[in-house]
């Protein structure tokens, strides 16, 4: 058993227990921050180990794979764990200024840590049934966080979120059952070998589609995204930031994992479906955003359109496209979480999230305006920020395949993203506040706790943008592992010879 694989999971669970015991005291928030900090260190160590070894695997309880519970970290898992820890750390600090005493008392910090543990577990697990279990851990924690405030809006959004996610869970479970019936295994590495031996390849495609729908709901792709804009604008800002950054990306990760390693038997069919899904997701998401006027609703719809780019990278299935998808995943988590955190500060300064009813932030809080511009422009794909490189690689991949129409859609959606970001900019920042309020950053309670994580994530965006080369090289290595899972299989099952 390798401690560097288990620590990123154990730390958040320990932090959750301690934070729950200390939920009535202000120390609870600090337990959450320290826990996330330690988790960040653990995931950096994991990343270092994986960079060195390629793929590391550990068998829990020393039951040999494929019978026991396997934890695996390849480069994709490691980078997702790392980015989860970074986001978790930033949001844990932000929570100091966002979560009130009542929410803390109801167990916000404990639920938050369990959510991080669930997300990390989903990235690290090496078998399908455990992926299901981690999904549930994540889901139940997110249910709790979503309705923590108990207001009408939260309950209303919660009902839709819970209902659609439960359906996806059941579909996922049915898919697991059928796949097990066909192959007799649920271990990713073993599945990658066994699916080729399945006689009835048509049935395998049917099961692949069940997984696509199940993970598609989680990833919020067209036409399965309706729970997302119904729920994401209702909870506390730190909750919606961590949801926006991480939850849908777990679905994308699961899609990438399953549709590169396991279901690569009929790419002509499955990945064509994914291609259509990706295009519709991009367009519908960005059009939905154009129709909204609430800060967080606009951002929620943009999550959907950006998910489309990642799915597009997966659907094209060329090395370059997958590089783009991986790069996009990393960039998007940072940027999106950051924008939701900024929405929280804007709300506290101006008293609302409806962009037509607020304003004046550029004049009175110019620093916040700069902090908003960085992730907003990155999201829209302005050079030299991280989003530009992500979009550039994906569009380049479509052009290499001579898919002109798809490339056109990807570029047009980028343009429409600018439109929405400009709307937020013009309404919330540029125009004077309709009530004549001139909100200043100085007046913000717990100012440092809110500004530091936002600034930190913005700096990260700039670093990736100005120096993309190591990140692209890293994404290329990740892609090699995805397209040729030999190293992964050897690490889990041992050398076949």
């Amino acid at each position, binding site marked *: 058993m390798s401690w560097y694989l288990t620590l990123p999971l154990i730390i958040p669970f320990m932090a959750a227990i301690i934070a729950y015991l200390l939920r009535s005291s202000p120390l609870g928030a600090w337990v959450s921050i320290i826990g996330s900090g330690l988790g960040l260190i653990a995931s950096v160590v994991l990343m270092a180990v994986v960079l060195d070894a390629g793929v590391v695997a550990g068998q829990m309880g020393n039951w040999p794979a494929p019978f026991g519970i396997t934890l695996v970290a390849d480069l994709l898992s490691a980078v997702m764990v790392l980015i989860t820890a970074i986001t978790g750390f930033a949001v844990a600090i932000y929570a100091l200024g966002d979560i009130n005493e009542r929410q803390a008392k109801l167990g916000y910090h404990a639920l938050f840590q369990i959510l991080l543990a669930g997300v990390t577990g989903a990235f690290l697990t090496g078998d399908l049934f455990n992926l*299901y*279990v981690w999904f549930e851990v994540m889901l139940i924690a997110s249910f709790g966080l979503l309705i923590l405030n108990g*207001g*009408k809006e939260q309950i209303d959004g919660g009902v839709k979120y819970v209902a659609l996610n439960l359906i996806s869970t*059941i579909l996922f*479970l049915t898919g*697991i059952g059928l796949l*097990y019936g066909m192959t007799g295994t649920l271990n990713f590495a073993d599945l990658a070998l066994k699916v080729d031996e399945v006689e009835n390849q048509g049935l395998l495609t049917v099961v692949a589609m069940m997984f696509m729908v199940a993970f598609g709901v989680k990833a919020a792709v067209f036409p399965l995204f309706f729970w997302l804009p119904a729920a994401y604008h209702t909870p506390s800002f730190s909750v919606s930031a961590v949801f926006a950054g991480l939850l849908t990306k777990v679905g994308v990760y699961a899609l990438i994992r399953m549709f590169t390693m396991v279901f690569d038997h009929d790419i002509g069919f499955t990945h064509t479906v994914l291609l259509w899904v990706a295009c519709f997701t991009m367009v519908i998401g960005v059009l939905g955003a154009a129709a*909204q006027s609430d800060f967080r609703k606009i951002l929620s719809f943009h999550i959907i359109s950006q998910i489309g780019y990642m799915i597009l990278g997966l659907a094209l299935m060329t090395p370059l496209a997958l590089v783009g998808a991986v790069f996009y995943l990393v960039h998007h988590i940072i940027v999106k979480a950051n924008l939701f955190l900024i929405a929280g500060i804007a709300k506290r300064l101006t008293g609302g999230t409806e962009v037509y009813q607020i304003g004046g932030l550029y004049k009175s809080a110019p620093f916040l305006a700069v902090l908003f511009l960085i992730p907003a422009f990155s999201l829209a794909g302005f050079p030299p920020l991280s989003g530009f490189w992500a979009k550039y690689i994906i569009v380049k991949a479509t052009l290499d395949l001579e898919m002109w129409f798809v490339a056109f859609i990807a570029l047009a959606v980028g343009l429409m993203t600018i439109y929405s970001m400009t709307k937020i900019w013009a309404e919330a920042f540029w125009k004077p506040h309709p009530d004549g309020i001139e909100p200043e950053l100085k007046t913000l309670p717990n100012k440092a706790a809110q500004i530091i994580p936002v600034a930190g994530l913005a700096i990260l965006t700039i670093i990736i943008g100005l120096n993309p080369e190591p990140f692209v090289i890293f994404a290329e290595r990740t892609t090699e592992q995805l397209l040729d899972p030999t190293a992964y299989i050897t690490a889990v099952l041992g050398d076949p010879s």
Partner: protein
Amino acid sequence: MEQLLSILIGILVASAVYLMLARNLLRFLFGLILLSNAANLTIFVAGRLTPGAPPLVPDGMDAPIGDVANALPQALVLTAIVIGFGLFAFALILAFRAYQSLGTLNTDDMRVAEPKEIKS
């Protein structure tokens, strides 16, 4: 036996879909629990059925003799039942709270978070 269970799963899924298409949240939840039971049965059947042969290892041996029941899908189903039950309990309470604070279980009327008219 497999055929019989397959038909049962089909009936469960059909009833579940019928119930889940209703606007009433409570009916939807009843459909959900039928569907989750159908999923559990699917896993059970997918593990192949061997009636009357428990997977017991005789004294002094490392493996059971002959064809015995597959224990893994049963373990999976057990986990799935527990998780499904927990989630369903949560969903029921949520529905109850929704009825308390929104005053309706008709999902068409639940428009608090997404009002039809945009405030301007």
